[in-house]
């Protein structure tokens, strides 16, 4: 058995077979063991805050080289779930497996650098690991942010900040890249470029990717799996099929199925993708909050 962190918490074993009335036909089979070939694997995670089940019996695996996208409404527990997977927060119950061979590069949701902290991009990237200046320059070039190297972090645009954060994650030589709403605060074109970059990094560095999508209606076409979260796992599937689930329509409203756009990879012209990139539909129930 490979070495690694395995957490097994059970305050009340009776909850392990909790069901949530999912009618999408992809019910939870909590008897499934941890996937020990995965980069990170979770079974029956529960987290209760102020009497509310923020995370309710979630199973999640990310395997090497696969892109897993989490979607769900605001307050669905997407960020909390990712924090549990990373070990930033601890579940009340459940099993978590993260082998020592898993090296995580994390790109957090918000990164508003306090203007009180003077910090150049170069200094930020060297902080906390032993990257040489040539490694830093090469990694910045890899993410398309080489021109920011001498700029102050607080002066970067939203897209530049995300690229610098991805560069920092890559400098840790990860095999799992975790991104929490990487396209937040980035315009429509910038969002497509970022998803393009993440797809290329997956291919060139054989990364597993766990991605929270900031927008219900747009998911990355290269996702191997899209998992729809609302405390529990509502449904999951290929990006082009997840919107067909009845549970998806119930959660996001009848218009959402039509509104789910899928970003095409720039160099990917396969014809099995049904969605095309288009702006958020005005009829969609969950608009991006201003």
């Amino acid at each position, binding site marked *: 058995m490979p070495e690694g962190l395995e957490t097994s918490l059970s305050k009340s074993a009776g909850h392990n077979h909790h069901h949530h009335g999912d009618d999408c036909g992809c019910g939870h089979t909590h008897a499934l063991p941890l996937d020990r070939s995965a980069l990170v694997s979770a079974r029956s995670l529960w987290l209760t805050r102020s009497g509310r089940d923020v995370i309710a019996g979630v199973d999640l695996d990310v395997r090497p080289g696969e892109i897993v996208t989490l979607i769900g409404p605001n307050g669905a527990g997407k960020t909390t779930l990712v924090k549990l997977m*990373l070990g930033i927060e601890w579940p009340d119950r459940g099993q978590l497996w993260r082998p020592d061979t898993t090296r995580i590069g994390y790109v957090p949701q918000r990164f508003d650098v306090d203007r*009180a902290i003077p910090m150049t991009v170069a*200094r930020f990237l060297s902080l*906390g690991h032993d990257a040489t200046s040539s490694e830093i320059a090469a990694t910045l070039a890899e993410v398309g942010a080489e021109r920011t190297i001498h700029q102050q972090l607080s002066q970067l645009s939203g897209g530049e900040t995300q690229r610098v954060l991805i560069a920092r994650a890559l400098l840790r030589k990860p095999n799992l890249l975790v991104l929490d709403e990487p396209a937040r605060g980035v315009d429509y074109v910038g969002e497509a470029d970022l998803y393009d970059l993440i797809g290329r990094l997956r291919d060139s560095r054989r990364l597993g990717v766990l991605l929270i999508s900031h927008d219900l209606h747009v998911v990355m076409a290269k996702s191997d799996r899209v998992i729809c979260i609302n405390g529990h796992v509502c449904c999951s599937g290929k990006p082009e099929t997840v919107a067909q689930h009845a549970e998806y329509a119930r959660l996001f409203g009848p218009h959402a199925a039509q509104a789910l756009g899928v970003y095409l990879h720039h160099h990917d012209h396969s014809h099995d993708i049904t969605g095309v990139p288009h702006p958020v539909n005005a009829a969609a129930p969950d608009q991006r909050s201003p």
Partner: protein
Amino acid sequence: MFEWPEPFVVRALLAGLGLAIVAAPLGCIVVWRRMAYVGETLAQSSLLGVALGLALNIDLTLAVIFAAVAAACVLIAFGQQKLLALDSVLGLMHHAALALGIVAIAVLKGPSIDLMGYLFGDVFAVTSGDLIWIYCGGALVLGATIMLWRPLLRLSLHEDLATAEGINPRLSRAAFDILLAVTIAVAMKIVGILLVMAFLIVPAVAARPVASTPERMAVIAAGVASVGVIGGLLLSLHTDSPGGPSIVLAMCLIAIISLLATGRRSG
């Protein structure tokens, strides 16, 4: 003709410069983490240490350090709960400590005791024993600050990112609170409890507009604080003004000039 200054002036200068260098990097972290109010609360709690020292008849510096560290521990404990906002806890502790300290000192020593010396410090009363405290304690605090510098810097930038990268946020924060308490307790002698946080914060504020990296900000802040100590002592000697407030006034002048000069350049 150059005249050697009086020994009490030399001691005041050495004490001020020693503290200026130790306090500068801590002050930067206080500014980054927006902990000014935490510092004020620790400073007011030092007055309880004075009362404790008078009551038990023990070394006042030791008693003050003990009280400040105890207050830091109370704050660390309160930081773990979510019932009360930290700001409310600070608002309570800060005023309770000041009021209790003043009442306790008055009861113990009668109303004749000179509170001004504790509230505003007396830099010209620094003894050789105080200097040993400042330089030995200061070296320890500076060493610990250098060790904690990177984790604290990363936590200041982004707590979740630092935690995901393997830093223990609670441990680093607790260690910093205790360092801050010790520094405040020792610096109180010079600038007094009401102005001690200025000694930490004002040089950092002055350094921010001209610094491009965090380390440069700390070094520039140490320089600003040193110039402020020299300028303040000269002002005090020439005008017979109290030493601690004169030093803080000099530091504030440098900060205002720094902010105005860089504000004009960028605006």
